[in-house]
């Protein structure tokens, strides 16, 4: 299926004696939306954390754009074309929406400390402002630029967080539960948004809402207890007996 934008193989993550992920592989191709699902504690977010420098990688190979890479530190991701949202949204409450989004474009902020101290990096600042306005348009929140982030309703904060993640022009966008905590109307909304984003970037998403996953994903990987138990199209995954057993098992014990 052509070139690989992201290819993780043999990924193992351990926390002390606990193996959170064991020999997991994942591929994302350009233009794809790939879902990562599994019952609670399956290791979905751990995989995101390993990829984004928040969790230690015990073993595993990372290939980006068909080139093998060292596992990146968090601050190196944007330069590798990877951007991520967090489950907790994490907007800065006392900044405006526009400023929040501008934070995501720091890789384009080139001003030196001295220039900033003298207030001379104005053109750069203007560039980021304009770029942030465009990002806000993409998530249908352009009218909210001047609002304080802590004045927004929760569903909107999720969109603003995505706008912030778009600021670095990612080739791969990692969405951590984009539909988490949303009502059904906002979920429809998020579905549409993800479909739109697909034209700009590939997406790897962790999500609990099955309707979202089945609706937006081209391919799906299923984790259970830190191991990959299935992969395929939504149709294939839905009919996979191991997946059904994992979810039923999880429901039965809950």
């Amino acid at each position, binding site marked *: 299926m052509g070139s690989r934008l992201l290819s993780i193989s043999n990924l193992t993550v351990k926390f002390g004696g606990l193996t959170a992920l064991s020999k997991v592989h994942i591929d994302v191709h350009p233009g794809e939306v790939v879902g990562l699902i599994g019952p609670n504690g399956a290791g979905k977010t751990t995989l995101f954390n390993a990829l984004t420098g928040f969790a230690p990688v015990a073993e595993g190979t990372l290939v980006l754009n068909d080139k093998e890479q060292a596992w990146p530190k968090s601050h190196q*991701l*944007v330069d590798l074309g990877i951007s*991520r949202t967090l489950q907790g949204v*994490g907007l800065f409450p006392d900044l405006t929406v526009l400023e929040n989004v501008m934070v995501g474009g*720091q890789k384009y902020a080139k001003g030196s400390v001295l220039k*900033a101290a003298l207030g001379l990096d104005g053109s750069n600042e203007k560039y980021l402002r304009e770029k942030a306005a465009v990002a806000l348009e993409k998530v249908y929140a352009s009218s909210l630029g001047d609002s304080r982030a802590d004045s927004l309703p929760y569903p909107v904060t999720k969109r603003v967080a995505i706008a*912030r993640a778009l600021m670095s022009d990612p080739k791969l966008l990692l969405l951590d539960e984009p539909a988490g905590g949303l009502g059904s109307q906002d979920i429809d909304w998020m579905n549409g948004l993800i479909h739109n984003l697909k034209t700009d970037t590939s997406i790897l998403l962790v999500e609990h809402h099955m309707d979202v996953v089945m609706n937006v994903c081209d391919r799906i990987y299923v984790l259970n207890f830190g191991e990959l138990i299935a992969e395929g199209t939504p149709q294939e995954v839905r009919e996979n007996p191991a997946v059904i057993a994992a979810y039923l098992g999880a429901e039965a014990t809950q």
Partner: protein
Amino acid sequence: MLILDTLLIGLSSGAIYALMALALVLVWRSTRVVNFAQAGQAILSTYIGYEVMNRTHSYWISIPFAIIAGGAIAAFIDAVIMRALAKRSHKGSVAEIAPVIATLGMLGLIRSLTGAIWGNEYLQYTSPVSGKGYLIGGHTIPFSPQNTVIVVGALLVMGVFAVIFKFTNLGLALRAASFQPEISRLAGIRVDRIRTIGWAFAGSAGAVAGALVTPTSYLSPNSLDLLLVSGFVAAVIGGLDSLIGAVLGGLILGVGFAFILQYIGTSVTFSAAFIILIVVLFVRPRGILGSKVGRRDA
């Protein structure tokens, strides 16, 4: 007239407290550390200013040197000591308190260092500007040209900070890194580096405070200790998180001090700071401009 005089005096000392409070708030915001070493850092930078003045015979030339030294000392402390400490300590109560204890240790260390180099006697770091009050209509007011230098200098520093934090990318990165380090890292911000810059700004603000206030008294290894207390009280009054709050807190404290000294007496100088603090906290428990919610809940 007396009220106006008292107000002017309060404004001048309040400007100094505000600078010190700014220094403490900058570090607190970015690293959640109450930096007791700030008094030591400001003393060391002022001694460096003193040395430059002795060589150049110019107070004005010595000030930028003191400011650069103050920034460099602070950056060194953060990059070398605080960062290493943070890497070695993990979660838990000791991890939270360890950096604060370390700053106390740094304060002692810097004090002994300055004592060893310059001795413990009182040195004169003098400004060419008169410390005698202006003569207005046959009445000498307690506000001198040096007080003017203090107020103008402090306003300049605050203005520069206001521009940086409100209108520049660096300011945005500083604010972001202090609020949400994880998100900031994901946005490509080198959070460690940004924190060190925050420390450097704080150190520079403290250095300005030291260089401006020392000509009104004398220079010794512990001559800025009281200023640390006042700066801390001012920072808490202002809400500890807010730069504007720090400035307001400094001014409130300075003016409050001046009135207490004028109308009650010098015997209560030290306790007055705490009385003002307690009164403000009773009225506004979060400080004047403290955040409504704890950072962790936000």
